[in-house]
């Protein structure tokens, strides 16, 4: 019998990870005068849920400090290091994490730090020449198993992995984290249709529906509502939840529907950093236009950490 307090423990820890993701990314953006800020603000709870509550992963088999870039995959580089090692060994019973919107790399690295799979010193290598901690990661980057910076390619690859695992009888699931902009690509719809056709009930997708893309706002009012229905119409299951509500995410992410299952996490791209709203609708990348502006963000940061 667990007490209510014990039941709340996971929420406390998960929310703490989410909060620390926001703080660490803001710190990084402040010190580097730029970065993918809104992605962290919208998806902090999603990543925290994945790595503290949802994914069944073994311990990392990768070094806490990432190794330098050691060449691209190829015949003359058979020992190519795959960043999926940060998510633990591949085994029948473990889940797999496939990271789709590679522009969220900073959020993923930060999450790995907050859950103890990557040293915080590893982030010092971010976007540095010769490092694997790239701004837009590839499959040598920490936590990145497949190369997906060309958006909307991850779901198809995850479908192939899920198909192989289903044939083998693996009990572990294949989890994909996607962004809503990727649903503008036709390949995403091909993948949903085929995943449903092959009854890939071991394939789970959580989508950061933040309504943002490079050119600005995606007009969520008109876009989100039909999106979930369109996914269902293609043969998968899909539920919409508040992407910052841990209980709602937990319920949606633990559903067993017998189909490829999409959790549409409706999120706020300035969550926890309301000052950022000044920049709307262009929230894709934050670079400070003046020292005065940076000081105002720094003041918010000081409030967050104190």
């Amino acid at each position: 019998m667990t007490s209510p307090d014990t039941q709340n423990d996971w929420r406390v820890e998960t929310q703490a990870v989410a909060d620390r993701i926001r703080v660490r990314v803001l710190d990084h953006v402040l010190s580097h005068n730029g970065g993918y800020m809104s992605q962290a603000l919208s998806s902090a709870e999603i990543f925290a849920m994945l790595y503290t509550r949802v994914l069944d992963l073994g311990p990392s088999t990768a070094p806490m400090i990432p190794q330098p870039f050691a060449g691209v995959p190829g015949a003359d580089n058979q020992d190519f290091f795959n960043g999926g090692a940060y998510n633990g060994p591949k085994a029948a019973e473990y889940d797999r994490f496939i990271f789709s919107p590679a522009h969220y790399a900073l959020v993923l690295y930060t999450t790995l730090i907050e859950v103890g799979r990557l040293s915080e010193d590893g982030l010092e290598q971010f976007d540095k020449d010769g490092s694997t901690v790239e701004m837009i990661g590839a499959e040598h980057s920490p936590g990145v198993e497949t190369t997906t910076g060309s958006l909307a390619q991850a779901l198809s690859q995850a479908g192939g992995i899920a198909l192989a695992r289903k044939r083998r009888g693996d009990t572990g699931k294949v989890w994909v984290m996607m962004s809503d902009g990727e649903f503008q690509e036709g390949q995403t719809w091909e993948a949903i249709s085929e995943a449903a056709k092959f009854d890939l009930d071991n394939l789970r997708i959580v989508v950061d529906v933040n309504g943002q893309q490079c050119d600005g706002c995606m007009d969520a009012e008109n876009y989100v509502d039909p999106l979930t229905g369109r996914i269902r119409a293609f043969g998968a299951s899909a539920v919409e939840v508040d992407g910052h509500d841990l209980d709602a995410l937990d319920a949606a992410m633990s559903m067993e529907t017998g189909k490829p299952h999409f959790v549409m996490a409706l999120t706020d791209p300035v969550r926890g950093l309301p000052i950022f709203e000044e920049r709307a609708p262009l929230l894709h990348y934050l670079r400070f236009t003046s020292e005065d502006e940076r000081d105002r963000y720094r003041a918010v940061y000081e409030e967050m950490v104190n």
Partner: protein
Amino acid sequence: MEIVKRPHVENFIAWAADKPEVVVLTADLTNSSEVGKWRDTYPDRFFGMSMAEQNMMGFASGLAREGYVPYIHTFAVFIYRRPYDQLAMSIAYPNLNVKFVAFLPGITTPGGVTHQAIEDVSIMRATPNMTIVETGDATEVESVLDVAHAVDGPVYIRMLRGEVPRLFPKDEPMRLDEVRMLSDGEDVVIITAGITTEEAMRASVPLADAGIGVRHLHVSTHKPLDDPMILESIARSRYGVITLENHTIIGGLGSAVAEKMADAGSGKRLLRLGLRDTYAHGASRAYLMKEYGLDAAALVAGVEELTGIDTGITENDLAEARVEATHSLAKAEGL
């Protein structure tokens, strides 16, 4: 000349029997890619992926990452044209064990411009990690699977279907990056691949009768293309080299030979025959080969241009040569 009907069909079934890791993916072109019987033989290893090639590349990537060896069977244009970003990023970059069995190379189809893969070798050559092979006869159709399977990485196969001639002995299989010398002579080197090899063979007797010494090399591996016989042959030729390809002359076999010659500082002349920076259209193979200068007559004209010798070879000489190879007059294959 022996004509073999659909050599891939039974060969692929027998070959895959003891290879449970081999799976087939196709995009609504099962019988057109000669894997209908394979599907019926190994239904649990066959995946119809609908007309959705971008997604098919991703699924193949995922299956390969899990230890399967996907053999994608579809038309060449639907491998390198439509889903190129997916092919490059989901398969070629991670150097995954996916084999592309690409049917209807060049103008082998009457399906017209949409079905004719005329720049595939060029694009695949420019793709890092990609190995490229091309079948020129039934023996190579039967042995290319071993070649592809032995490569630890992606392989693009220009595949022949339907009625295929047997030009090479059954016990002389295709070998990676090894050219075949089909005739020898001191005057001109002729380098061919795929269906153009048969054309060059048709011209070889009349050319020999005309006193032109031809060293004819058949290439079955476009990448890597490092067999030293190529440059050695060119170096010892009196007049130079002619390439004849079922492909645009930009980026394919002719370009590859040009690059090798330039790298080596060869001073010999090179004549590149093939599609001259043009798309083609829907018509029979024999008609298109004549129209675009891919046939034996075009080759003879090329030899005359390179050597400055009037061979006296007429259409009639070549027409006689064609009679032996009746299959080229066979009814065009359906789509």
